[in-house]
C-alpha cells in the first residue's frame, strides 16, 4: 500500500511543481473566467432576466448566476490542459516512464487525474476569492460544501481529458479537439444561461444541454455553493466520470494502443 501512496504523492507533487513553473498558466486560468465575470456578465445583466430557480431563493444578479458556470469553466479548461500535457508527455517520452512503472497503469493514470484536479480546485478557490473581493459572494458554508462537488466535477472533466489524450496522436491535432469539445460543452450547458431560457429558443438545444455532462457538473457546483445537494446532477456526473475513465483506461491499454510509437 505504501508504494501506491508514495507514487500518488510523487505524481501530485510533480503536477504541482509543473504548475508552479508555468505561472502564466495560472494567470491565464484566472483571467479567462474573470473577464467573463466582470466584463461579459456586466454587459449581459440587463439583457438577461432571470427568474427565481433553485437553488436561489431570491432574485440574483447575472454575475451571481454565472459564478458556478465559471468554476466549471476553470475545471473544463484545466481538464483539457492536462490532456494537452499528457499528449506532450507522450511526445516528449516522459509518459513512457510512467507507463513502464511496475504499479498498475490504472492507478498511475488515476494519480495523474487526481493531481490535475487538485491544481484545478486551487484555481477555482482563487477565482472565488477574487469574485468575493468584487462583492460577488456565496453563502459562507457554500465555500466548504462546494469542495466535494469540485472534486467530482474535476475528476469527470479530467477523465474526459485523459480519454481525449489517449486518442489524440499529435499535439497539432489538439486545437481542433479544443474547438469541438470545450466550446460546445461550455455553450451547450447551463453555465451561462438557465436551461429554461434555452428551451424558449429551441427544444432540441435544450435537450442537448440537458444531456451534456458539463451541465450536470455546473448544477452540482451551483447547488453545492448554496449548501444543497443536487442528487441527479451528482449521479450524472459520477456516471459520466466512470464512463470517461473506463474508456480512457481502454485507450491506454498496451494491448490496444501504441503509446510508445512516437518518441
Amino acid at each position: 500500500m505504501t508504494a501506491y501512496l508514495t507514487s500518488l504523492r510523487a505524481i501530485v507533487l510533480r503536477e504541482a511543481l509543473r504548475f508552479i513553473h508555468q505561472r502564466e498558466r495560472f494567470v491565464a486560468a484566472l483571467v479567462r473566467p474573470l473577464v467573463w465575470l466582470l466584463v461579459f456578465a456586466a454587459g449581459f445583466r440587463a439583457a438577461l432576466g432571470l427568474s427565481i430557480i433553485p437553488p436561489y431563493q431570491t432574485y440574483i444578479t447575472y454575475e451571481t448566476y454565472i459564478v458556478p458556470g465559471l468554476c466549471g469553466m476553470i475545471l473544463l479548461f484545466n481538464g483539457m490542459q492536462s490532456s494537452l500535457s499528457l499528449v506532450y508527455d507522450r511526445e516528449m517520452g516522459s509518459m513512457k516512464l510512467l507507463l513502464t512503472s511496475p504499479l498498475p497503469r490504472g492507478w498511475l493514470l488515476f494519480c495523474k487525474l487526481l493531481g490535475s484536479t487538485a491544481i484545478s480546485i486551487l484555481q477555482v478557490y482563487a477565482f472565488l476569492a477574487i469574485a468575493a473581493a468584487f462583492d460577488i459572494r456565496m453563502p459562507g458554508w457554500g465555500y466548504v460544501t462546494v469542495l466535494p462537488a469540485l472534486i467530482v466535477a474535476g475528476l469527470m472533466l479530467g477523465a474526459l481529458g485523459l480519454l481525449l489524450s489517449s486518442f489524440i496522436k499529435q499535439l497539432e491535432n489538439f486545437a481542433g479537439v479544443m474547438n469541438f469539445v470545450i466550446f460546445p460543452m461550455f455553450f451547450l450547458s447551463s453555465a451561462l444561461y438557465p436551461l429554461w431560457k434555452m428551451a424558449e429558443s429551441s427544444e432540441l438545444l435544450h435537450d442537448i444541454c440537458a444531456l451534456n455532462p458539463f451541465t450536470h457538473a455546473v448544477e452540482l457546483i451551483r447547488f453545492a455553493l448554496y449548501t444543497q445537494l443536487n442528487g441527479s446532477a451528482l449521479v450524472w456526473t459520477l456516471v459520466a466520470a466512470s464512463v470517461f475513465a473506463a474508456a480512457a483506461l481502454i485507450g491506454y491499454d498496451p494491448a490496444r494502443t501504441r503509446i510508445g510509437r512516437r518518441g
Partner: protein
Amino acid sequence: MIGLEAQGLSYSYGQKHALEDVSFSVQSGVFCALLGPNGAGKSTLFNLLTRLFVAPTGRIEIAGHDLRTAPRAALAELGIVFQQTTLDLDLTVCQNLTYFAALHGLSGRSARSRIDAALDQLDMRERAGEKARDLNGGHRRRTEIARALLHDPSVLLLDEPTVGLDAAARASITDYAHALAETGKTILWATHLTDEVQPGDDLIILHQARILAHGKARDIAGDLSLQDRFLSLTGVQA
C-alpha cells in the same frame, strides 16, 4: 541463469511487419548488443520488452517473470534507458530521480540513499541540484542511467543510449554498461554503431524485422571486422 528471453515475437503496424518471429535469450551477467540499421525493428522490440506494446504472439520473460502474466514483477526487474531523453527538464537531477524512485514505490531514507549511490556511481553527485535543462547530453544520459539503476533491476535495456553524444561520452557510457554486466546484470544495448560492441559480447543482428545472426560478436565477425560483417549481412554498402 537466463536474464531476458523472447520467444516468437511478431508485430506489425497495419500491413508493415516490424518484427517477425523474433526469438533470443540473454544470460544473466552478459552484455548483449542488439545491432541493426535504422528501421530494423529495434525500437519496436524495445517497446514490446517494456510493455509499451503487447505482442499478439510470442512470450517475453524478464528475470524469470512472464511479462504477460506477471507484468508488475517483470517490470520491477527492468531498468530502461529510452532512446529519447525522458527527463523532466524543469526539474533538478535529484527531483527527477526522486520522482522515478516513487514510481517504483521507493521513498524517504531508502530512496535518498539509493539516489546518492546511483549518482556516485555515475560521477553525478555534484550535479544533483542542477536542472536537467542545464545538463549537456552526456550528463543527461548519465542521469538517465543512474535513474534506471535506482531500483536495482537485474535487467537493463538501453535503446541507442549514445545517440548525439561526443566520442568521449560515448566511450565512457559504453564502458560503464560493460562493467555493469560484470556485476551480474543482464544488459541489452541497442545500437547501429559496431564500435560499441566488444568481441566477447553477445550480439544479435536485427534486419528487416528478423534476426540475421545471434552469437558471440567475435564468432559472427569471423575473419572480417564486425563493421564489414554487419554491412555484408545487411546488404548495406559502406
